[in-house]
């Protein structure tokens, strides 16, 4: 050892396993933060590639407001005539699905094709290079992205089958192109075909979805001027036309991803938080254990600051190794998360690993490590030289009441912060910060309270064991309650992850419960036909051509076939300067629709309300009405790509769909304002109950045979599909929270290992008086189970509480939502706790069982 400073290194090297366990939290926490940042960069990278590819030379993009709906065909002519416009290319777009020879639609992302109908004579403004064959010229020809064609083993000249809104179409592959960005849109492909054919197949006559413009002259100034002119020409009459630059589109995506980022980073941060906890707990234990040694160093003249520095150095050393490993693991985690997102049909391409992500991950890792080691370092510095003689073996820590009071205060304040965030219909930075800091506060407070709960909880949980006068149970209980602070800290680490899982489960189950009871109440239909994976608000959706409605209506058993057109709006109209809200717009035919839907309307009878809807008025969701201050009879202006319309509120709708941010209108209004021409859903009702099975069979036959991209769902199937979607999304978040739980697993292993070291003599005695290895092992396993169960129990209570608080905040903002306890999640958490307890005990229990009896007995 060359200097006092290298003492830290020696400590780490002397106990590599301990170091590994202590640093594991940092490894996983940093990995999580890094992984999440990489994931976020990857998603952004995918979209920026997308815009670079699609918009290539484009300076301005003209579309319906927020990209919803279509522009009338006349727009193209008018844009072309605008001064300063050099080149123009207009298109209509749709998502089609590849169909195999057997007529089955390919379910995975690589079966999806984003199709644009283009004018073959118009200039190509994209970033594509033709690499084989030629661009489509006329008729049923299609040009495909090469990578997609290769994945699906398609060659130039092949005829492929695609499921379009008008049924399965056969198209000849005229050529292959490649984007110079090498765009990977999560496996989804791109293709172009002549607009004349596209109009028929997409059922989009006389409209354009987008007009791309190249400006004459250079510079932002020229572009700005042209933009103003186009807005003036097209926006006449208050139409909701949007003229943007490609880069502002990517900024929009960025904005939309922000809340996703916040949640992901928060969860990753929680994993790191638990990691810091591990450091705190482990170093506190180490300091206690080394009391005598530290005292000795003090007698030799080491100053307090030197002692605390050694502890910090040791932590930092561990932290740095952990961080380095964490960056490596993070890449794998990011890959895993990307794969998970792809499984959810979210388009993500190849990994983008920004340097900034690594910097942030390293910085947070170092900070967490130092914060975790701060208190132990201070305690180490307080060790008096006399401890060299007295030793520290008997130092038992008992929590003080002052800490409990502080803990209760923190939990209360934290809960209030979480409520504030949840209750905000449109959370801004202060609410988000208060909410997230609040949740951290709840856990910090909890860590101060839990030590008080350890003794009674251990008593309660070990009651069956003591009742059966099992020695192993009794000794485990004694061990767990002998150091309530340590047991408490270990259990709290587990609590953090589990509580968040339960809290999110509560919110999930409550929404699911609310939606499910709404469907039970309001669905008067027997069957729903919709595109597979229909999820408005999550990118471009497939649609249903109107031919199908007529065909289904000809089935004798069908009493009603009602169409519904559902579109996502990034911004609902904002009367009275209401805050910006996303929402869904619904288009329906009031007559048929009233026969398949019983949704509760407020402020007017259904008959009266729908009569007004037929005349151009709208219904609005209660949440939206509340936020925008809308009452029945109030004025509202709808603006879309095709036109604008002044209207009035006919009735309020009691719904939790999309949080109650909805506007309902007639399909005519929707077409006039938003240019929407295709159906999203068809709701069917049978003539009689007896006709249902036959109707079901006939509809299924038609859909499966001619429209493989569509599905026909019974109401139960519809419900379970929504359930699956919600569960998948929660599954994604739970996977991230799972890492925090795994971190706490290492915490339990660490504590048990310490417990075994401390109780060596006791274990030796047990063995000497006739306890088998198996009995010793069981003592450790029982202790582990006790810690895990305490953590789980508190986690469930706190999680359910937190979920309740957050849900009530949300429920205040979303009328009609009802609390449903997440029974399934709670049961899974309990089972997980037992498994975790058993897993954590494996190594320490083996170590205890293998303890050399003589050595253990002679150990002082």
């Amino acid at each position: 050892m060359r200097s006092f400073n290298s003492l830290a290194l020696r400590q780490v090297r002397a106990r590599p396993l301990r170091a590994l366990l202590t640093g594991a939290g940092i490894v996983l926490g940093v990995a999580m933060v890094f992984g999440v940042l990489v994931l976020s960069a990857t998603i952004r990278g995918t979209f920026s590639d997308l815009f670079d590819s699609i918009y290539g030379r484009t300076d301005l993009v003209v579309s319906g407001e927020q990209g919803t709906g279509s522009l009338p065909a006349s727009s193209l002519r008018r844009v072309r005539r605008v001064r300063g416009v050099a080149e123009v290319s207009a298109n209509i777009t749709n998502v089609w699905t590849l169909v195999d020879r057997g007529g089955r639609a390919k379910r995975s992302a690589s079966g999806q094709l984003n199709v644009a109908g283009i004018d073959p004579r118009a200039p190509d403004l994209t970033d594509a290079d033709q690499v084989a064959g030629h661009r489509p010229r006329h008729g049923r020809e299609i040009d495909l992205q090469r990578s997609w064609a290769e994945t699906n083993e398609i060659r130039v000249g092949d005829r492929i089958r695609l499921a379009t809104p008008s049924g399965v179409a056969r198209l000849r592959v005229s050529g292959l192109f490649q984007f110079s960005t090498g765009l990977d849109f999560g496996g989804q492909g791109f293709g172009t075909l002549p607009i004349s054919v596209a109009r028929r197949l997409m059922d989009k006559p006389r409209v354009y979805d987008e007009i791309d413009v190249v400006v004459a002259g250079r510079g932002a100034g020229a572009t700005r001027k042209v933009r103003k002119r186009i807005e003036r020409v097209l926006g006449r009459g208050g139409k909701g036309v949007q003229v943007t630059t490609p880069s502002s589109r990517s900024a929009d995506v960025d904005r939309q991803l922000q809340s996703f980022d916040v949640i992901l980073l928060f969860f990753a941060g929680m994993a790191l938080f638990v990691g810091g906890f591990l450091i705190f707990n482990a170093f506190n234990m180490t300091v206690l254990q080394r009391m005598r040694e530290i005292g000795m160093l003090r007698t030799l003249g080491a100053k307090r600051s030197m002692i605390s520095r050694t502890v910090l150095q040791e932590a930092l050393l561990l932290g740095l190794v952990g961080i380095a490993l964490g960056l490596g693991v993070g890449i794998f985690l990011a890959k895993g998360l990307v794969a998970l997102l792809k499984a959810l049909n979210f388009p993500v391409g190849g990994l983008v690993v920004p340097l900034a992500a690594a910097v942030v991950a390293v910085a947070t890792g170092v900070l967490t490590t130092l914060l975790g080691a701060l208190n132990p370092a201070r305690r180490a510095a307080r060790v008096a030289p006399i401890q060299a003689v007295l030793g520290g073996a008997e130092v038992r820590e008992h929590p003080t009441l002052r800490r409990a009071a502080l803990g209760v205060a923190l939990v209360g304040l934290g809960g209030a912060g979480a409520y504030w965030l949840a209750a905000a219909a449109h959370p801004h930075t202060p609410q988000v910060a208060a909410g997230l800091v609040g949740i951290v506060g709840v856990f910090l407070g909890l860590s101060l309270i839990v030590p008080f709960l350890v003794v009674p909880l251990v008593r309660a949980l070990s009651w069956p064991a003591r009742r059966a006068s099992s020695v192993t149970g009794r000794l485990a209980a004694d061990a767990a309650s002998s150091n309530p602070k340590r047991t408490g800290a270990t259990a709290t680490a587990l609590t953090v992850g589990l509580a968040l899982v339960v809290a999110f489960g509560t919110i999930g189950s409550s929404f699911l419960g609310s939606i499910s009871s709404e469907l039970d109440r309001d669905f008067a239909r027997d069957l729903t036909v919709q595109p597979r994976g229909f999820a408005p608000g999550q990118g471009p959706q497939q649609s249903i051509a109107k031919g199908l409605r007529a065909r289904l209506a000809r089935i004798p058993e069908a009493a009603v076939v009602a169409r519904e057109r559902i579109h996502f709006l990034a911004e609902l109209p904002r009367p009275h300067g209401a805050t910006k809200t996303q929402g869904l717009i619904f288009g329906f035919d009031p007559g048929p629709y009233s026969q398949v839907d019983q949704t509760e309307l407020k402020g007017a009878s259904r008959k009266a309300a729908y009569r007004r809807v037929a005349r151009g008025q709208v219904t609005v969701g209660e949440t939206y009405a509340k936020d925008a201050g809308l009452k029945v009879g109030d004025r509202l202006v709808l603006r879309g790509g095709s036109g604008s319309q002044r209207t009035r509120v006919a009735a309020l709708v009691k719904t939790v769909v999309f949080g109650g941010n909805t506007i309902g209108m007639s399909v005519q209004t929707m077409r006039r304002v938003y240019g929407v021409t295709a159906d999203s859903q068809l709701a069917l009702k049978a003539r009689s109950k007896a006709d249902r099975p036959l109707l079901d069979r006939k509809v299924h036959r038609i859909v499966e045979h001619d429209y493989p991209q569509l599905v026909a769902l019974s109401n139960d199937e519809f419900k379970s599909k929504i359930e699956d979607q919600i569960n998948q999304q929660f599954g994604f978040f739970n996977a991230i929270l799972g890492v925090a739980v795994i971190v706490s697993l290492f915490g339990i292993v660490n504590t048990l290992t310490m417990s075994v070291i401390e109780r060596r003599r006791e274990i030796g005695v047990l063995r000497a008086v006739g306890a088998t290895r198996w009995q010793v092992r069981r003592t450790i396993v029982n202790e582990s189970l006790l810690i895990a169960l305490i953590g789980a129990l508190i986690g469930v209570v706190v999680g359910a509480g937190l979920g309740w608080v957050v849900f009530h905040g949300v429920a205040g903002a979303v009328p009609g939502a009802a609390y449903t306890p997440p029974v399934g999640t709670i049961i899974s958490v309990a089972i997980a706790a037992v498994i975790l307890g058993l897993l954590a005990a494996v190594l320490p229990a083996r170590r205890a069982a293998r303890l050399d009896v003589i050595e253990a007995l002679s150990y002082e």
Partner: protein
Amino acid sequence: MSAGAGAAGIEVRGLGKTYGEGETAVAALGGVDLDVADGEMVAIMGPSGSGKSTLLHLLGALETPSAGSISIAGKRFEGLTDNELTLMRRERIGFVFQFFNLLATLSAEENVLLPALIAGRGGEKARARARELLQSVGLGGRLDHLPSELSGGEQQRVSIARALLMRPALILADEPTGNLDSTASAEILGLLSELNATERHTIVMVTHDPGAASIAGRVVFLRDGVVAGEVGGGSTQRVIDYLASLEG
């Protein structure tokens, strides 16, 4: 060396224990023969490194011998698995340690009851016996006390009661007074010799205190891993003299 001779009591033949292997091998015991009759009390003495602790560990089935054989009440140790050795300790041997080794979280009564609890026989009968034993070592009034609430002498009495609980064939005491003051030592030695005299318990005690050794009927001396000699007990002076002769 007939089987009958060892049926009761302890029979040790050619007992050897070597630690390590090859060039680093150290022989702690190099062929010890020892007989302890049923109801006898034997003290084992010897300088540090003489092998007395090793002998005690081997007798206590805490370790397995490298050579030779041990039988206690007719049950031989050789070739037993770890579990069988554990059962042996549980059923036939009672330990009294220098550092008492009581479990800090268990009361006096529970500490005494521990072997029965481990054996899964912690019923009312065992409890009654535990109380009775504590009574007989003079702690009838302190059943519920934790070890930390008892003096060193009292703790050692609890550990003696624990050693007696399963009615073992042999009680092994490892420096039972090594951690006690003279008054407490005298009490503990009195208790051990009384147990031997009135209840005919077989006791083997390792000690380096000639006064403690002298309460035994016989004192066996070890040196360099072999039996160096033995004298009759009863007189401290005789033991001291013999020790001096060994060293001289």
